[in-house]
């Protein structure tokens, strides 16, 4: 392996990597996503398999967090009832920017089997919080979780941090002047 053998001489023969600052920041952000797991139903049971050694969710650089303040993204796995929807919204508001949401399973995506007669079910968690990645399935296989995670990483890697900050500043200026 090229780079590892040359750690002793970092400035000789290809020891320097060139790239934009944004790329390197995003590379780091995409590979250390801490998550808040909001398990509600059978999708959360499937998520146990995802966390176990066979599928090993942690190799994506994810660490489960018990508090929304430390989490980068929230995983909604299961049926969102109207009673629980308010709690989810509160947790989402407590998370620090930048924050993302993965909606897992048919229930969280669109109400699933409760779409017609589920008087108590919120028909899709995207009605209360923004969702960045939808994972279909009832419940999804761990492979689908992996695919969702890769999609989220890809999204983070392509994100414009600095332009976004500038854009946010402009937006707040407009709000302040208005």
């Amino acid at each position, binding site marked *: 392996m090229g780079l590892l053998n040359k750690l002793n001489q970092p400035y000789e023969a290809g020891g320097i990597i060139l790239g934009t600052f944004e790329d390197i920041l995003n590379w780091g952000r995409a590979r250390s996503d801490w998550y808040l797991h909001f398990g509600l139903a059978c999708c959360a049971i499937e998520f146990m398999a995802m966390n176990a050694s066979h599928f090993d969710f942690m190799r994506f650089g994810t660490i489960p967090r018990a508090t929304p303040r430390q989490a980068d993204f929230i995983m909604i796995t299961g049926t969102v009832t109207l009673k629980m929807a308010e709690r989810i919204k509160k947790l989402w508001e407590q998370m620090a920017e930048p924050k993302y949401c993965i909606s897992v399973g048919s229930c969280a995506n669109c109400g699933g089997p409760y779409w017609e007669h589920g*008087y108590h079910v919120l*028909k899709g968690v995207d009605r209360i919080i923004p969702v960045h990645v939808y994972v279909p399935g009832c419940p999804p296989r761990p492979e689908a979780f992996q695919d969702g995670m890769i999609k989220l990483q890809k999204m983070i890697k392509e994100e414009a941090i600095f332009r976004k900050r500038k854009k946010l500043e402009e937006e707040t200026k407009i709000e302040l002047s208005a």
Partner: protein
Amino acid sequence: MTINEIYEQLKEEYGDSIIELIENPPCDSSIIVKAESIFDICHTLRDKPGFEFDYLMCLSGLDLGENLSAVYHLYSMKHSHKVVLKTIVPKDNPKIPSVEKIWRTADWHEREAYDLIGIIFEGHHNLIRILCPYDWEGYPLRKDYKEPEYYHEMKVPY
């Protein structure tokens, strides 16, 4: 003790409060009783030697259209016999005495029947909703229930 013997003994003791015995094989036979005397009947069934129904297996609410009904499945650990009691109350005044003081397991069962069907169990120490949010309107498992358009500014229908 068979269901017929239980029925005969109850009929002797309570007379008009025991309305009829419905046999419906292969389902369990059930005894229809008057709602007002359900507490006394259950007390007798639990404590009288020979009955000793020490276990309330299930208490469920039903919507029969014009009436509401509560069904009690009782079991005796000692004698291994069981009995099904049914009470029927009108929908506009659905009041049944609570059996929570006889079997403590009835506490949550009665709260569930109150929450979803809307039967009011008189004498229950804490009759509040158990599954739906406290400010939910209506009783969702009634046949004529219509789901709300909005709940706390969240749209309910698909």
